[in-house]
């Protein structure tokens, strides 16, 4: 199991809003595929998968906020 976390986005940025999931639970992903789009201030940030595998769980819904370091999704790594 590999966790996808909200990455460090910049100094003073403590949270982001999940704007869009490119994937749903059960989807196959390759390493580096964009899986979720975060929005902070006036910026959109795409978070890639850090390994190939299957999306096991999505933990933050679209429109909800997550703090830096919080778990966004879990990948069942191949």
């Amino acid at each position, binding site marked *: 199991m590999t966790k996808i976390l909200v990455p460090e986005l910049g100094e003073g*940025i403590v949270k982001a809003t999940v*704007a869009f999931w490119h994937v749903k639970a059960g989807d196959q992903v390759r390493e580096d595929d*964009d899986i979720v789009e975060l929005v902070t201030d*006036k*910026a*959109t940030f795409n978070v890639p998968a850090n390994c190939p595998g299957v999306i096991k769980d999505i933990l933050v819904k679209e429109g909800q906020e997550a703090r830096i370091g919080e778990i966004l999704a879990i990948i069942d790594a191949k």
Partner: protein
Amino acid sequence: MQHTATQHRAHYRDLGLISYQEAWDLQKTTVDAVIAGAAPVLLLCEHPAVLTLGRLGAEEHILFSRPELAQKGVEVVRIDRGGEVTLHSPGQLVIYPIFNLNYFGKDLRIYMQKLEQVAIDLLHDFGIVAKRIDGRTGVWVGQDKIASIGVGVRKWVSYHGLAININTDLQLFSLIRPCGLDVQMTSMARLLNRPAELDLIKTKIIEHFSREFHLNFTSEEKI
């Protein structure tokens, strides 16, 4: 090491008046190229009247129906950037820096501050005193907004960017509540009391990007 070694090679491309969609397609292919290791690219353009709405932007900030907008010749596009609704129209200089932010601090806030600084420095060249307002992204003259910022990032490569009102028809902003705020927009032409020369502004903008990001720009027709 030679002094010039600190300035990295980059390209700019002046697209002139180009549809939002066509420029968006070009941004996407350019982002792919920069992710693959190509030099940074600065795209400069103007768009025919178009309203763009960020992913989480609220429809109610567009104050007219789609048929009414279509009649006025204004397109509406929902896009993957932060921020609320924004208007682009001829006379507004739109700048899309496609930069690998791994080389520029890997920090969204610093990057957006650099974009704001470029606009502030450009306006200073024309005797206009512009500033940031804490907690409100963009560039302001007094309480009026002159430049808007909305960026996207993929693999730490930037897209979307900065829009500066040069000779923009400010009446068009009455179609929207810009950025979801009750903001008054202004332009260089309004502040200078005359139309500003877009070609000169483009030259100055490239100089300021060069200084702010330590890049050495050359024109590129095809990327």
